[in-house]
Each structure stands twice: as structure tokens, then as C-alpha cells.
């Protein structure tokens, strides 16, 4: 046999060895598979804790930032004829609602959801919200004082901040949720006008929310739109950055809960339900509040994170998540043109 065929034979052997052993297959009965788009640094400890407490093996597929790969929602959609996941844990509402409309999800009302405000749950039970993040305005504390910092997203279109504003690509991730929410809230004419003025103000559209944060930290721009957790990680590491909860008194603060859902025709539905029960428990909300993710608990009585005001101290943007999500495609197309993406 030639060298190449030896190599080929060797690779077949390795391929065969890479397949799972029978014992591993047996253990599958006590396992649960979860696809997670919440940042791994925050979600991994939660799932490891569940594994320890329950003894159930948790198989996790984590997502990357939105612009690094096309993401797990595509995988869930591609796998619909033979679902592999039991649970989808999303870090923002848009993807979950797309998956609901594509019939990827199954309804499940968890007993742990008791105490979570009804507006943060799907009336049909396809998703339940928990631990929320906020879309915030980050500002560089060496270049901008708290008094000068913008109070509203409207301020970002003010010529005072010309060339000094960054935001992530509004087609992806939590920014897509935010812009869809603004369109739902303001109506098309007003929202279009706002983004045109933002464009005229030379807004820098960058690849991700963490890049927005990095630009603000380095002082390449003075202010930027990003998420609470991105800013907080930098605050904790001592970087010169602060955050403002925008539109506290007018439009309302854009609140983004995590959302957890059961997958339709999941391979391990009971285990999936148990994991959902755990994720919706006050324990997990406490863990996520205490972590650097500084996520705001939705259960009453769970202490909130430091650095972030409690959820009852400001007006959240009143939002029909489904309505906002249904318009993502159209809003995406509008903004691609307006912002010249």
C-alpha cells in the first residue's frame, strides 16, 4: 500500500474512534442539551452549577458574538426535522420570537415562572423571560463628565456629539432588538428621521457591542450605545467608562430579558423542562445579578446587582416584543439604506 492509502486508512481508524462509545450513548438518558446565546462567561457557571446539583449531564452549544458566526438560531432552524437541542436560552428577544414564528419552539409553562411579571412571558407559553439587561449609553469618564453625558438616545443625534458616537451593526443581536423597539415605539417616520440625523452626525457603526465599549474605553469615541454587561465588565476592570440608562423619563429604558424556551420535538423533553425550571428560579437570577453580567432579576425580592439601579426605580420601555420582532426584517432593510451599511 502506498503512503497516501496508509494515511487514508489511518484517518478512517481515527474517524471511527471519534464516534461516541456505547457507554456514552447509554448515559444520554440522563442528559440535556441546551443551546445558549447568553455570553459563555456568564452562562457557563450557571449550567455547571445545575450539572452539579442535578447530576444530569448538560451538553452545551454556546454562541459567538453576532458578527463572528451566523449563530445558533440558524442551527436550530436547520435541525428542525430532527431536533438535537432540548432548550434554547437566548440573551435577547428577537431570535426567540423568530424561532417561535418558525415553529421551532414548544409551549411550556414552568412553575418557577411564578413571580415574573406577566408582560415578560409569552401568553402561549413559548418563552419565559428572566434576568434582564438594559441597552445603555456608555461614556468615557475621562473625556465626559456624568453631567455632560447624553441622557437620551435623541442626544446622540445632537451635533455636540458629532463623530463621537458608536453603535453596533443594527442588523444583529441586541442592537437589532433596540432599533426594532425604537421603530415600534416611535413609528417609521420619526425613527427614520432619527437614524438619518444619527448618520449625519457621523455615527460609527461597528461590528459588536463589545467593540463599542472598547472604542469608548480607548477614547476613540466619547459615547456609544451598548449593553449593561459589556460596560460593567470594563468598569470592574477599572477602565474609564460609565453608563447612563437612556430615556428614563420619556420613551422608557429598553429592557432586554433573557428568554428560555423548550424546543419542539426535543429529544429529552422532561430533562429540558427541569432545566428550564432551574433557569427560571430565583437562585439563577441571583447568580446572574451577582456576576459581572449584572443582570437585573425579574422575581420580586431577589437582590439586584450593584452599579445598576433596581428595575422598579425607572420606567421600562413598554414593548410588545412580538410586534417589535415581527418587523426586524423590514427595519433591517430600512437601516441598511439609511445608515449605508
Amino acid at each position: 500500500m502506498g503512503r497516501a492509502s496508509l494515511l487514508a486508512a489511518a484517518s478512517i481508524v481515527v474517524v471511527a474512534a471519534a464516534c461516541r462509545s456505547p457507554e456514552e450513548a447509554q448515559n444520554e438518558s440522563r442528559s440535556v442539551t441546551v443551546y445558549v446565546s447568553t455570553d459563555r462567561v456568564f452562562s457557563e457557571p450557571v449550567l455547571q452549577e445545575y450539572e452539579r446539583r442535578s447530576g444530569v449531564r448538560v451538553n452545551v452549544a454556546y454562541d459567538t458574538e453576532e458578527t463572528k458566526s451566523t449563530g445558533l438560531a440558524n442551527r436550530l432552524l436547520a435541525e428542525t426535522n430532527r431536533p438535537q437541542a432540548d432548550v434554547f436560552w437566548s440573551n435577547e428577544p428577537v431570535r426567540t420570537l423568530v424561532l417561535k414564528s418558525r415553529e421551532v419552539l414548544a409551549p411550556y409553562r414552568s412553575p418557577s415562572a411564578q413571580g415574573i411579571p406577566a408582560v415578560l412571558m409569552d401568553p402561549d407559553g413559548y418563552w419565559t423571560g428572566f434576568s434582564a439587561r438594559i441597552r445603555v449609553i456608555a461614556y468615557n469618564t475621562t473625556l465626559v463628565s456624568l453631567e455632560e453625558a447624553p441622557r437620551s438616545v435623541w442626544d446622540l443625534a445632537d451635533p455636540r456629539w458629532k463623530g463621537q458616537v458608536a453603535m453596533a451593526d443594527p442588523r444583529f443581536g441586541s442592537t437589532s432588538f433596540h432599533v426594532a423597539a425604537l421603530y415600534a415605539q416611535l413609528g417609521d417616520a420619526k425613527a427614520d428621521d432619527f437614524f438619518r440625523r444619527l448618520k449625519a452626525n457621523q455615527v460609527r457603526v461597528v461590528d459588536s457591542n463589545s467593540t463599542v465599549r472598547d472604542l469608548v474605553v480607548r477614547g476613540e469615541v466619547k459615547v456609544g450605545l451598548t449593553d449593561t454587561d459589556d460596560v460593567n465588565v470594563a468598569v470592574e476592570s477599572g477602565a474609564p467608562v460609565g453608563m447612563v440608562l437612556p430615556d428614563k423619563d420619556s420613551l422608557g429604558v429598553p429592557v432586554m430579558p433573557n428568554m428560555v424556551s423548550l424546543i419542539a420535538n426535543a429529544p429529552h423533553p422532561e430533562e429540558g423542562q427541569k432545566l428550564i425550571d432551574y433557569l427560571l428560579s430565583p437562585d439563577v437570577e441571583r447568580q446572574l445579578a451577582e456576576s459581572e453580567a449584572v443582570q437585573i432579576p425579574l422575581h420580586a425580592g431577589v437582590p439586584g446587582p450593584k452599579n445598576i439601579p433596581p428595575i422598579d426605580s425607572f420606567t421600562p420601555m413598554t414593548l410588545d416584543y412580538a410586534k417589535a420582532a415581527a418587523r426586524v426584517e423590514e427595519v433591517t432593510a430600512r437601516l441598511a439604506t439609511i445608515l449605508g451599511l
Partner: protein
Amino acid sequence: MWGPRSSRTLVIGTALAVFVIVCLLPVVYMLTLTVTTAAGQQSGFGALLLDARQRELLVNSAMLGAATAIVATLIGVPLGVALARIPLRRKAVVRLALAAPVLLPPYVAGLAWIYLGGSRGLIAAVAGRDLLSEWTYSLPGAVIVLSLVLYPLSMLATEVAMRRIDGRLEEAALLVAAPGRVLRRITLPLAAPSILAAALVIFVLAVSEFGVPALLRVRVYTSEVFTAFAALYDFGRATLLALPLLLLSLVVAASAGALAGDRLLVTRRGAGGRPLLLEAWRRPAATAVILVVAIALVIPLLVLGREALGVRSFADVVGGSREAIINSLVFAATGATAVAGLAVWIGYARARAPSRLGQLADVLMVVLFALPSTVVGVGLIGLWNRSGPLGAVYGTDVMILLAYLARLVPVAALALAASVRLVPVSQEEAAAVSGAGWFRTMTHIVFPQIRLGLLAAWTVAFILAFGELGATILVAPPGEATLPIRIYTIIANTPSSQVAALALLQTAVILAPLAVLGLAVSLRESG
């Protein structure tokens, strides 16, 4: 050449069947899906009629691809010539240092240049004012970043080709012409097909790149395909929108083919020939090597290293990655071996095919290689994730290898076809006439002569497999998979110091085995 010789028919037939299953079927699946969804939608194939904005993006992509291919070739070819024909000291180390930038994930190289040239980067800090940020965040900036990462492909292709050129041709030319002229008129034209092939691969890699343009805020067409997947979750539309990119690659491939012609290099370095040696150029070459290594390797590594110093705990970064590192090395090595093992037969079949069919095969390979990785990933899911025996494979690590095969066999086959074409058919015929079986002819005549080409194809497959993210993240079984998956899932929301540390880790992990391999090969050659 296509007689019913059984072992040949069996081997090539099997290889082609495997190729169809692993590389073609996922694409056929996606195209079928696209046609059926487009037929059912109101807009249908209308997505293909690009609007003005999309056409502008396509032009940007073409410029990014072409400029990167040209700049990377302009850096890579002289270095390849130097490695092949200028007696440099410690050549194995020099080659490794020059090749190492290709190991930096392009996104990470982009980050390094931002840390350096952004408006608050190191250069601005040293100079006291912003000198470079306009350039960093621009199309030329993206071209430079991608060229500095991709030139090693051109360099290695040039070196491999030049070492195959018959020294007697150069020796004869040297009787009447100066070395510089011989290089220009004899040596480089003979190596041109390999150089053009490498430029084409660089073009395809550059137009497929999404991370670097997004980071440097350069608007490219890839974002349209990406948006269709990541924002609209519309597989049909995404595949449809990928077609203009594939067409672009096809046009460039056809032009490169026309440029190269069907030039066959009947060349083997003869024992009596004394090939061109450019001893006089030793000093300028050494200077160029130092310059390129400094700019493409040392500066980015230093900048990343400086950024990584801020990391709170290196132990956290490295310790948690052990399993992913081992997985990645095993998968990439197995994958590269499988890729080279399959591609060598496909490449051989292409090299020995009639010329019209061969050119068609080249175009097919380029188009397959240019497919967005998500299209391949979703196609693989659609194909393998079903009940029955196929489903038993889905959900195992074999899917990662299938993703590598689907993504990389086309490019490896292209490269290996080029190597096989340098082996004269007459030698195989002579072996056959002397009574050698086909298998024996392959192992004793063909393989020894394409040894370097095989090694190069394996190495490139190893590097690309090691860094693959787009398709593997879709098909890898849940649980700890590869190092890029681990790194890209961790870097969401970690401070830039940790991102830099992880990037250095990924580079170090892949550099180590390649360094050992490279030194082993050069020791064997010199010994």
C-alpha cells in the same frame, strides 16, 4: 489514459464518489432548498437583482479581493524566490518565521493593527497625535491586514514551484543572460501557474472574509449573505445572495486560468543541471526577510502581548482550554490527513483529465472553496441530520471532519493537481510499459515527485482546518469542541486583554506542531 485498469478505476472512482458525497451533496442540498423557497416566495429570484447599494458592496469586495491578492503576491513571490534560490543562513527558521503570520486568525491580526494604529493606539500614543486611524479603518487598511496574513500562501507556492523547475533550463539561460534576466524570463514564467493559483486562493479567502472588514468598518458584500443568515434566518435567500460572490470568484478563476494558459511544465531538476542561485542578492534578501518578519509577525505579536499583559489570570485562559486544544490538534491533524488523502486522488484525476474537462473541474473547485462556510454548515446539517444511519453520524465528532473535508478538499485538490501536472505523463507510461502496475507507478513514480506538494497541501489544510469556525460551529456536537469555537464563544464580553491572551494561545498552539514539522522536514532535506 482512461483504460479499464482495475485498481486505477477503483481508487479514482471511490475518491470521486466520496468527493461527491462530502463536498458536492451539501451544496446540491442548499441549491435545491434555495430554488424551492425562491419559487414559493413572492420576491423569489428577485433577490439576485442587486440594488445599487449591493452592487457597490460587490465592487468593494472585488477591490478588497484583487488588491489583497496583488499585494500578498508582491510580498510572497520575492520571499519564495529567496527561500528557493538564495543561500540564506538558518533557512528552516527563516521559512517558519516568514510563514507564521498565516497562523494568526485574520480577525486577531485586525485587532492588533487597531491596538497599534487606531486613533488611541500605540502609534498615536507615542506620536502624541492620531496619525494612522484614517488609514487603519479603510479599504487599504483591510488590504494590508489581510495581505500580511495571507502572503505566506503565495510564498510557499512560489518556493515549492521553483524547487521543481529543471535546473538545466536555467543553466542554459545563464550562459547568455544575467541572473536577474534568467529569473524574469525563465524561472518566474515557469512558476507562474502556481503563483497565479495561490493568488486565486488568496482572492477567494479575502472576498469571503467577514471579520476583518467588519472590524475595520469596510463595507463588503459578504455582509449581505451574513445578514440573510444572522438577521433574517432565510437560508434560501442567503444562498441566493452568495451566488454573485461565487460568480465573482468564477470570473477571477477563469481569468487566472487564461493568464496561466495550459502551460505544462515538463520539468524535473536534472542531476546535471545547476539551477540559478542568486548569491549576490543575499544581503538585500536578508534585509527584506527581517523587514517582513518584523511587520507581519513581531509587531502584531508584541502588540497583542502588551495588551495581554492586562489579563488577570493566564492560568484561567490556558487551563480551561486544555480539552479544546487537544481536540483542535487531533481534529485538524486528522482532518488535514483526510483532506490530503482524498484531494490527492481528485487532484491526480484532474491533472490527467482532458484539458477542457480539467479547466471545468478547476472552476468547480474554486466555486466550492468560495462558498460561505455557513452555507456548507447548513447543507451538512440538512444532509446528515436525519433518522437512520446518517443520523448516527450526526451528533458525533465525525461531523467536524466532514465540515473540514467539505470546505478544504476543493482547494487542496487544486493545489495537488498543479503538483501532479508537473510530473510528465511519459514517466507513467514508461513505467506501465515496463510492466509496473498502476498502484506501483503511483507510489514509486508520482508520489515521490509530489512529496513537497503533498506536504504543502497538508500543511495548508491543517492551518485552515485549525482555524475553521463558520461551518464547525454549526455541526460540532454540543460540548467542548475546537479551540476557535471556545475562543470565539468566550471573547463575547471579555476584556480586550483576555481576547489578546486567547489569540496568542491559539497562535502558539498551532505554531508548535508546525515548527516541529518544518524543522524535521528541513533536517531530512539537509541530511
